[in-house]
């Protein structure tokens, strides 16, 4: 129970702390001296506790023998939990699934978001309404949207997609059993596409119209303008989208829980879901905590790597 909650709560502040520290360091600016430090102290302390208490508890549990089914077996376990974890083929499968999910959703949302942003920047009838509609999936709760996709879009008997397939004379696809990972990726991408669109559209609007016109005078057609003017202009916004999305996508849970429950087999079990399985289905809190710690480390490696990239990008 506690481990399931601990992991996301522990990993988020940790990644953001890294972001903050890195920023002040790369910009080479020290903020304030002793006097401002005393003013900052309460907030910083609160944030630090917010991060360190769950993190420390997770680390502590991960070093314990702590299985709710075996209340008698307690005590210090050392690295035993980690040993089991790293020799468990489920961990590596879950890591692979996580990376596949994050990677594909990023590709779909960034490419799709960029193209949609270009589209929605054009002047056409009903643009305002179209923009709102395109952005609205972001405001639907993950559980709800996953349910809608499961029961109304991808259902093999009465889903919209199978109806379309049938009216085209094609066999209906049982999405969640034959293409489970693809289905989850589609659902998550559908949810995050609006986010990418929102950020990129805002960035598009700051593109200097004169630059586009100068390019037109220089002989650039729409495609050349996209690659030589628009895309370089969106570079920063795209790296921001990638960073933020990656942090959240590493912990996708609700969509998997509602649709496939991580299956069939381990086909859609990512790290977050694996931790849930260990903690709440196997009741192995120690093992789940070890998984949580691994997830935190993974998230931080990604974050540091990304923050470097984004910071470099923002500076240039």
């Amino acid at each position, binding site marked *: 129970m506690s481990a399931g909650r601990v992991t996301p709560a522990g990993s988020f502040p940790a990644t953001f702390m890294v972001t903050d520290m890195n920023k002040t360091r790369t910009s080479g600016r020290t903020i304030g001296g002793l006097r401002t430090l005393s003013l900052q102290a309460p907030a910083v302390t609160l944030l630090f506790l917010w991060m360190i208490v769950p993190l420390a508890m997770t680390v502590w549990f991960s070093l314990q023998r702590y299985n709710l089914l075996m209340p008698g077996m307690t005590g210090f376990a050392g690295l035993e939990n980690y040993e089991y974890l790293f020799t468990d083929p489920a961990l590596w499968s879950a890591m692979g699934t996580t990376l596949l999910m994050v990677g594909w959703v990023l590709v779909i949302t960034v490419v799709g978001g960029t193209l949609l942003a270009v589209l929605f920047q054009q002047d056409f009838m009903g643009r305002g309404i179209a923009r709102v509609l395109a952005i609205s999936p972001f405001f639907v709760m993950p559980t709800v949207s996953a349910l809608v996709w499961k029961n109304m879009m991808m259902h093999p008997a009465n889903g919209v997609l199978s109806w379309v397939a049938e009216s085209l004379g094609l066999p209906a696809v049982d999405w969640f059993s034959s293409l489970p990972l693809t289905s989850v990726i589609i659902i998550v991408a559908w949810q995050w596409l609006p986010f990418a669109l929102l950020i990129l559209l805002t960035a598009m609007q700051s593109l*200097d119209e*004169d630059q586009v*016109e*100068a390019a037109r*005078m220089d*002989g650039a057609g729409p495609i050349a303008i996209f690659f*030589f*003017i628009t895309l*370089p*202009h969106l570079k920063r916004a795209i790296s921001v989208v990638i960073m933020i999305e990656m942090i959240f996508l590493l912990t996708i849970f609700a969509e998997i829980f509602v649709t496939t429950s991580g299956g069939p087999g381990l086909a859609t079990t990512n790290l977050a879901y694996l931790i849930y399985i260990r903690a709440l289905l196997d009741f192995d809190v120690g093992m789940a905590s070890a998984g949580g710690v691994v997830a935190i480390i993974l998230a931080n490696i990604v974050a540091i790597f990304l923050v470097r990239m984004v910071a470099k990008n923002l500076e240039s």
Partner: protein
Amino acid sequence: MATLELKQITKSFDDTHVIKGVDLEVNDREFVVFVGPSGCGKSTLMRMIAGLESATSGDILIDGQRMNEVGPADRGLAMVFQSYALYPHMTVEDNMGFSMRLAGVSKDKRREKVLEAAKILQLEPLLDRKPKALSGGQRQRVAIGRAIVRNPSIFLFDEPLSNLDAALRVQMRIELARLHEELDATMIYVTHDQIEAMTMADKIVVLQGGEVEQVGSPMGLYHHPRNRFVAGFIGSPKMNFIAVEQVSSDAEGVTIKLPGGETRQVPIDGSGHAGGGALELGVRPEHLVLDEQGPMEGRIQVLERLGGQTSLYVQMGDSLLTIMADGDVAYRVNDSVRFGFSSDRAHLFDAEGLSLPKLHRHPLAGLRRQDNRAPSDTVGQ
């Protein structure tokens, strides 16, 4: 060779008519300046010439060819934007070579042409920098360089110097005039700045509300404005307008009664205005002269000493007049002054605001900028 002709060009955005029928001829190698108050349609007109905006009706001819349906890249024009519009992620060299890159010119050839333009503009040491690392004047030069490498038949400039400080503006103005000679190109230039218009133009086009008020040489517009609007717009400080009464008028001159009651004759053809009626006397600040025996009197409201000159703002009746006087005049605020005007420099406007023709055409009225050069300069052109 590059000439431009506009025939009855109009432009409407939905229901607003922005350009209302403009006719204009631009000759080869001419430097034409568009001036006019903000919102009069200067940029719109220029963008239509560039092809960035389509004309609602009328013809745009370049070298006699109708260009309305030709895209902006294929008209043989280059435009320099007020905001410079440099591509921020490209180096100076790439900025200048972008059009050639799109046209598929080889890298060596590109570099050669860019270097050539960079040399003219003294940009060689900056070729590897990004626009962000340049000063305003340098950016401006890169924008001009980007236009030069395209070897256009006509250059278009939309307020290119308005983001620069005063000193840099003077420098770039001189540089642009030099470029015009060096490149032998036709140039069209939009500006708000009186001095830029007067010093650089062969031909000034005064626009108001989407219509051409007058086209002429700088000296022609200064000495023979067609109407009250042009008279007020050209020249700085603005021309003074004084309501007067007409006493008599014929082809020999017009006799007017000034606010103080005295009468004067001015060398203006009054034959078209023999019927009498209200007139307005227009005198430029530099042509009002302080004179103890002068026919008009007023009270000094503000006094601006510039060193070489002093501007006096004088209240006479309801109107505030500007007088440019010598730098050493001893007057103070609230002093009352008498002044007159040089009558052969005076203008008269009728109730519609049209000016009555002057009896003598000013000797410099037809002067073009090229004519200022000594004859030896033009040898070899």
